[in-house]
């Protein structure tokens, strides 16, 4: 077995050289014109992490403003821009890019392919997405608002009509929002198509669909869902631009248009979108939990079926965001029940993860710690979700901080936790060096503590009636101390993320050498050198089971003997 990265390790002259201008330019040029799935994957993730820091700073600004009643840390206008940009950035520029970056890097490696099905489309998609992000942030200086100064979008990430009409949102901020998301949306669509084609048409010999690593399965399902999720948003935003620029009446209530139609279109996108974000996170857990429990995943076929089930059900639940708009009782009942139905496949997944861990020889390395945090938090997030799916409960708590707490439990407690887990797990593969475990433990515990201080408490201010998206509040509402605690938790999370960023940078230069397979894992990416060469595999691999590297390491007891 080729176990060291280079046959001649140590014999190379590694004294750092001063790079000339031309070399730097050439290096840069190489990254800009690259069509290599691994480089594009890295670009996606780095881009996402940068925006994670930006949107995190926005969240901090929001929390300082809300830390105590009557604060004037932000102006009311800027506050609206902050929560709009925070939400929009986190969903489209952080969640989507990091998760699709993972897919770009890992899917071809995991299925034994040399690249994605369409490498140039892949590069095109990345740059579209990147351009979308720059476009929306350019609005801070270019989106001339009412008073002739730069203005970012301030209509909320849901951008409800009729606030987005020209009469109520003059200037160009809202147009930047719509255009940037249309552009980024086409990038996402391109990547989704690419992932589907790669997973279906590029698998190595022996990699039948039911031997694909679950991460690839989850990305396949996610991409299929993306095809029909992102596009309704694109359509609705085209309508919005027609209203704003050509004088159309889609959402113009004065001319018979309907604001509720926008809500429907937005949530037909918006709800499946949260599953587009969470399913790749499931995929990451599916890879990490077995390796760190030293057991094969429990119930592989059930996991696949549950993922497909979730994708289907998630398309029929969108109006649970609209119970307070007023629907017929049949409509209410339908969306209550369909929403609760999602609990079944999700429950199957949680059961399978627990069963995988059960009786395993658990290694509490940082990736596993984050995954355990994910399991616990995702369970709670699912439970508050079921509470919110009960229409009368929802009438009481809609648009309160209870909702904010619920979806941050998913977005942060599940998705961001798993993104961190994934980065700790695959960073050695990507860079050839381990992330520092010490800093990793600090990162994990601080983030966990900060997370629970912030978001557990948010449930309670929600119960006490605090609405979301408010600039400030009166001191006699009984929310003061709780809000202060929430803000403290936010700061702790901020510190944890900075430790993480520092870990990423310093381990790149000083981290321990990783070797091919530092975690003793079972999927194909660990059979390549770290970092993998441009062509990935020197010879096309052939697999006979779901854990090809297990077969390789244990020829006396291979998996294919037991798999149906």
């Amino acid at each position, binding site marked *: 077995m080729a176990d060291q990265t280079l046959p001649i390790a140590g014999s190379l002259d590694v004294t750092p050289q001063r790079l000339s201008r031309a070399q730097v330019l050439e290096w840069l040029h190489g990254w800009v014109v690259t069509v290599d799935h691994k480089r594009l994957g890295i670009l996606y993730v780095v881009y996402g992490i940068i925006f994670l820091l930006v949107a995190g700073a926005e969240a901090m600004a929001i929390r300082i403003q809300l830390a105590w009643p009557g604060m004037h840390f932000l102006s009311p206008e800027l506050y609206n821009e902050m929560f709009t940009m925070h939400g929009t950035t986190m969903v489209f520029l952080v969640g989507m890019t990091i998760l699709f970056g993972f897919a770009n890097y890992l899917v071809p490696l995991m299925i034994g392919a040399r690249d994605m099905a369409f490498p140039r489309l892949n590069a095109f998609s990345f740059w579209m997405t990147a351009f979308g992000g720059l476009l929306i942030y350019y609005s801070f200086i270019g989106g001339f608002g009412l008073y002739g100064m730069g203005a970012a979008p301030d209509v909320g990430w849901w951008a409800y009509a009729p606030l987005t009409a020209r009469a109520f949102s003059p200037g160009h901020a809202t147009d930047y929002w719509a255009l940037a998301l249309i552009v980024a949306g086409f990038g996402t669509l391109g990547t989704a*198509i690419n992932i589907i084609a790669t997973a*279906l*048409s590029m698998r190595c010999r022996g990699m039948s669909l039911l031997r694909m690593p679950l991460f690839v399965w989850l990305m396949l399902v996610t991409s299929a869902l993306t095809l029909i999720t992102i596009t309704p948003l694109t359509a609705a935003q085209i309508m919005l631009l027609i209203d704003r620029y050509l004088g159309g*009446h889609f959402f113009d209530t004065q*001319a018979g248009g309907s604001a509720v*139609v926008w809500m429907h279109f937005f949530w037909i996108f918006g709800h499946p979108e949260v599953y587009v974000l969470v399913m790749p996170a499931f995929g990451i857990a599916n890879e990490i939990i077995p390796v760190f429990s030293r057991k094969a995943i429990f119930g592989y076929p059930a996991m696949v079926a549950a993922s497909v089930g979730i994708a289907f059900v998630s398309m029929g639940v969108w109006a649970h965001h609209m119970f307070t708009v007023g629907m017929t009782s049949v409509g209410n009942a339908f969306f209550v029940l369909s929403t609760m139905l999602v609990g079944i496949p999700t429950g199957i997944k949680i059961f399978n993860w627990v069963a995988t861990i059960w009786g395993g020889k658990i290694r509490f390395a940082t990736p596993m710690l984050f995954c355990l945090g994910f399991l616990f938090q995702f369970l709670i997030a699912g439970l508050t979700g079921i509470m919110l799916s009960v229409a009368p409960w929802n009438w009481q708590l809609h648009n309160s901080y209870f909702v904010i707490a619920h979806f941050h439990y998913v977005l942060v407690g599940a998705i961001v936790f798993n993104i961190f887990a994934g980065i700790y797990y695959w960073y050695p593969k990507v860079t050839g060096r381990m992330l520092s475990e010490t800093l990793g433990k600090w990162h994990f515990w601080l983030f966990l503590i900060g997370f629970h201080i912030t978001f557990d408490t948010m449930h309670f201010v929600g119960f006490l009636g605090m609405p979301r998206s408010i600039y400030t509040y009166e001191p006699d509402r009984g929310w003061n101390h709780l809000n202060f605690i929430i803000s403290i938790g936010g700061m702790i999370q901020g510190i944890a993320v900075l430790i993480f960023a520092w870990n990423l940078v310093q381990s790149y230069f000083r981290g321990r050498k990783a070797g091919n397979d530092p975690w003793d894992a079972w999927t194909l990416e660990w*059979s390549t050198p770290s970092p993998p060469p441009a062509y990935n595999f020197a010879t096309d691999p052939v697999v006979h089971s779901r854990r090809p590297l297990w077969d*390789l390491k244990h020829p006396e007891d291979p998996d294919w003997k037991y798999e149906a």
Partner: protein
Amino acid sequence: MSAIPISPVAEPWRLPSRGRVAMLALITGESAIFTIFVVAYIFYIGKSLTGPTPLQVLDIPWFNTICLLSSSVSILIAERQIERGKMRGFMMWWALTIALGMIFIGGTAVEWHKLIYVDGLTIRTNLFGTTFYSLVGLHATHVVVGLIGLSLILIFTLTGHVKEQHSERIQVFALYWHFVDAVWVVVFTVVYIVGR
């Protein structure tokens, strides 16, 4: 990595064509865009506060429709021709497809000209105008994109760059054109039959 030692069974290894898979995926995504526009159209039927109404101004574009739908047949024949290596036949049927598509777009232009200058219906007149021009315009945009693609392929065929071995790619592109035609059936039914 090197080959794994024991190989239990040597199954034959066949995978679907990536081009076809990708085109079908693109079509799925596009269908979702059209679905939203169609739903909006249907929802707003009869909700305009002022005239003109569809019944007053819309004529059913039978000729246009026949042209567009028969272009699906002509492209199908072109696909068969290139598959068998008959490049001349391919070129003829392909050119016919373009011509039929052009007639369709020309017909739409004439229709819109009449609607705008004779009937005074623009995208801002009323909800009917907004939804009509958006939905039909979205479809027309797709036809134009398709025509550009078709023409590029024709040019490359004339210069001898498209050969028999490209028939698979030609068929993948043709899928898109079939999709554009199929969408017209829906748009036609919704706008000119149900909506009138």
